[in-house]
């Protein structure tokens, strides 16, 4: 009896203690709760080479241009620039007028701790920082060879003890306090997109000087949110920037996004606080979403079958107010050949392999049948792909594949050496590798799978020591050039052309097209080049993936996107709806 009483007391006390171990949400607070699926490396814009770092940095820093939040296809609009740039007729000189009265966030690095006004010289400084080889910026490729005199400045300063930021660069000038001028080394219409990337955001030199190497943890920009210090934790809390300029929610939208105009004209940002949880594992993140503790998250592969059916959420999730957002991503998955290996110069071999591969089944197995089969390298949604184009070599066409393989000189695979297929070391990659192996086996092509940890896999590709390998490419900006350059000869490894494909005719076409301004002629050229690569089967084009995002019923204005790093400022919380829905969790 006594023992039972003791046990009951212990259990009751435990329940009381445990019930106090969780934090309750206040639905009336305008707080966004988000998830970052990778570690945040820090807050230096010139190192923002991944989507997730870019998203965090964009809460604090801003650039000259941004993508319109409610326009699809993506459309550039001014951000810190007062208007779109004036471009000279020869496409060489870009002149920007800057917005006046934009203040950097308050910080002790400024006199009196008050943030000063952002000027054209801040962009000159920030872009030189990116070019400074000592800073090892991962964004240098966006400027490499693009601005007159900048490469020379980089080379010269890399030999000096200290880089001279006062030395003028012909292609990068602050004409006056509010006028910034870029002069390109040669025409490159995509240059304008790079100015919307986080690499090109404005940083104040006083702050860089004050914190030195610790600048990475002390972000001070002009953006909508403030983070006093980055403590490398897994919970990052941003608060509204009290000195943020007057910026308003857009009042115009593409037809498919018109339903997001509810907050049109309201001053940004719309929520007071943003909390970002760094969660690399999908299971706890999914549980957190289902508990109402985060506002949106991608439906994990392992939970897909129970959560989504026929592109709709399950009844249970719908009852809790969840909404499913489906959006195509600007990406492509592909199996690349290393063209340094003469074996792959045999076009019929490549075509036979493509015809043997059943992408539809792979889509079901690995993407829950949510992806679009890729016919070529350019994803839908970008000018340069004919939506009706069907690649004649896309499988499964086993008999034709066998015939082509025989024509290639390897009937039934006889005489063809075993091909090495490199994959990154992960369960899904291994499964994909094994699937590829089985598919090729059908026509007698033998595949040996080699898996390596991601850094080693990357190094093997860059060192050209692979034969075949699987990869995905996501758009850096919405221009076909960003995909076609994957097969441009001068971009060979260690550049982005990991296939080391180098065809003089294609290279010439590429050089011409990338110097053309956006026009129907350029689109036609892109389409021609895309078709050429597709039918040459320079790679086995896999799928264009779609994002399946589950969002809370109380979240407003959200739509999945690849390039809007600064989306958070537009998101809103319907507190009344949250108070009502949270009762169901």
């Amino acid at each position, binding site marked *: 009896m006594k023992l039972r009483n003791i046990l009951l007391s212990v259990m009751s006390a435990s*329940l009381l203690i*445990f*019930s106090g*171990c*969780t*934090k309750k949400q206040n639905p009336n607070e305008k707080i966004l709760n988000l998830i970052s699926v990778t*570690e945040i*490396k*820090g807050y*230096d814009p010139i*190192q923002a*080479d991944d989507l997730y770092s870019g998203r965090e940095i964009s809460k604090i820093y801003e650039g000259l241009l941004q993508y319109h939040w409610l326009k699809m296809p993506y459309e550039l609009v001014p951000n810190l620039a007062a208007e779109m740039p004036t471009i000279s007729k020869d496409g060489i000189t870009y002149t920007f007028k800057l917005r006046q009265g934009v203040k950097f966030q308050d910080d002790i690095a400024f006199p009196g701790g008050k943030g000063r006004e952002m000027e054209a010289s801040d962009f000159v400084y920030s872009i030189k920082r990116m070019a400074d*080889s*000592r800073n*090892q910026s*991962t964004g*240098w*490729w966006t400027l*490499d060879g693009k601005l007159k005199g900048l490469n020379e400045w980089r080379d010269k300063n*890399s030999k000096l003890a200290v880089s001279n930021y006062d030395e003028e660069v012909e292609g990068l000038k602050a004409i006056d306090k509010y006028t910034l001028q870029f002069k390109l080394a040669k025409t490159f219409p995509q240059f304008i997109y790079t100015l919307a990337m986080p690499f090109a955001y404005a940083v104040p030199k006083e702050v860089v000087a004050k914190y030195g*190497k*610790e600048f*990475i*943890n002390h972000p001070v920009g002009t953006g909508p949110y403030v983070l006093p210090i980055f*403590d*490398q*934790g*897994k*919970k990052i809390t941003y608060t509204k920037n009290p000195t943020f300029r007057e910026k308003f929610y857009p009042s115009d939208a593409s037809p498919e996004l018109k339903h997001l105009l509810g907050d049109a004209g309201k001053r940004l940002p719309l929520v007071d606080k943003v909390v970002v*949880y*760094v*969660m*690399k*594992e999908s*299971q*706890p*993140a999914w*549980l*957190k979403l*289902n*508990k109402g*503790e985060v506002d949106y998250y991608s439906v994990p592969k392992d939970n897909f079958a129970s959560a989504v059916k026929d592109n709709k959420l399950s009844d249970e999730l719908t009852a809790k107010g969840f909404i499913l957002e489906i959006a195509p991503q600007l990406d492509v998955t592909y199996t690349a050949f290393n063209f340094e290996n003469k074996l792959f110069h045999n076009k019929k071999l490549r075509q036979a392999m493509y015809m043997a591969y059943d992408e539809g089944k792979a889509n079901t197995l690995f993407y829950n049948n949510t992806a679009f089969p890729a016919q070529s390298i350019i994803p839908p949604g970008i000018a340069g792909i004919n939506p009706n184009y069907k690649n004649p070599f896309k499988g499964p066409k086993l008999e034709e594949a066998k015939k082509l393989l025989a024509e290639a000189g390897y009937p039934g695979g006889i005489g063809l050496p075993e091909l090495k297929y490199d994959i990154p070391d992960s369960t899904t990659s291994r499964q994909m590798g094994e699937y590829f192996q089985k598919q090729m086996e059908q026509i007698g092509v033998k595949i040996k799978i080699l898996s*390596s*940890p*991601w*850094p*080693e896999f*990357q*190094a*093997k590709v*860059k*060192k050209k020591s692979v034969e075949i390998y699987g990869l995905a490419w996501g758009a850096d900006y919405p221009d076909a050039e960003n995909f076609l350059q994957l097969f441009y000869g001068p971009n060979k490894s*260690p*550049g*982005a052309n990991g296939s080391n494909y180098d065809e003089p005719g294609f290279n010439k076409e590429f050089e011409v097209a990338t110097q053309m301004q956006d026009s129907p002629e350029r689109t036609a050229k892109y389409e021609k080049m895309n078709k050429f690569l597709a039918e040459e089967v320079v790679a086995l084009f896999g799928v264009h993936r779609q994002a399946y995002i589950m969002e809370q019923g109380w979240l407003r204005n959200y739509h999945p996107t690849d390039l809007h790093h600064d989306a958070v400022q537009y998101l809103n919380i319907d507190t009344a709806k949250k108070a009502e829905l949270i009762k169901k969790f």
Partner: protein
Amino acid sequence: MNLYAYIFRRLLYVIPVLLGVCLIIFVLFNLVAPDPAYTLLGKHATLKQIAELHHELGMDKPYFMQYLDTVKTAFTFDFGYSWSSKQNIWEMIKTGAGPSLAITGPLFVFSNIIAISLALLVAFYRGKLIDKFVLILSIAGMSIPSLAVVLFGQYFFAYKLGWFEISGYEFGFPNFIPYVILPIILYIVISFGADTRFYRTVILDEAYQDYVRTARSKGLSELKVMFKHVLKNSMIPILTNIIIQIPSLILGLLFAESFFSIPGLGAMTINAINNSDFPVIKAMTIMSAVGFILFGVLTDVLYTVVDPRMKLN
């Protein structure tokens, strides 16, 4: 031998051990691991950029000079900056040590207390129902994969019952407490089987010694026999097992930290390995090596306290 002289002599061993550790990590990094430049510079790297980065990181120096740099780092503890996150490594260690210890500290204390207590209990009742029950529980605990325990715990206790936070961490006392209770409990469950079995074997080995029979035949109570004689004489292997765990405490729990989003040193080390972040890997390896040496010395000293018959030499 004088205690201080012994400690001094043992500490001198740090020098050859660190030189060896430096050599191993240097060889592994330079000859086995991939070139970090490809990871650090991203997908658009050029040959020129790679060469510039090699120069900036000192990777273009002769191997001997690079080895000397590693040795210098080991002896000065000046770990520099992370190649991947550009953070000061000492700051990273200081920041990560707290969250790691917030889990491993209580886990260390509670798991050992529970395991030793249970081991004493089952040794006391050897062959009885309770012994068999704990033995079965221990085997079950060892057989169930830790991932299954973590997934179940997170789903059932945190999500379904809502007793704990699912994951995350907040710096500062007492903010972190709600986040660490569940991982601590789950890891006690995961580790208790192996620990209890180990301690049970140690205690049973001792419980069948002649002097224990003598003590019993002299009429001493079982409690006195177990605690005063058996436990005391089992302390050498128990102490070794406990102290050897201490350096690992600061290194954190590699898997748990990632799964519970704890910003500790375990998660930091995993990240460093994934990103070929040599300075961080080097720092953590050197810290572990030094930790193991220091706690090895402490174990030896404690042996003489627990068992005065033992001599330091």
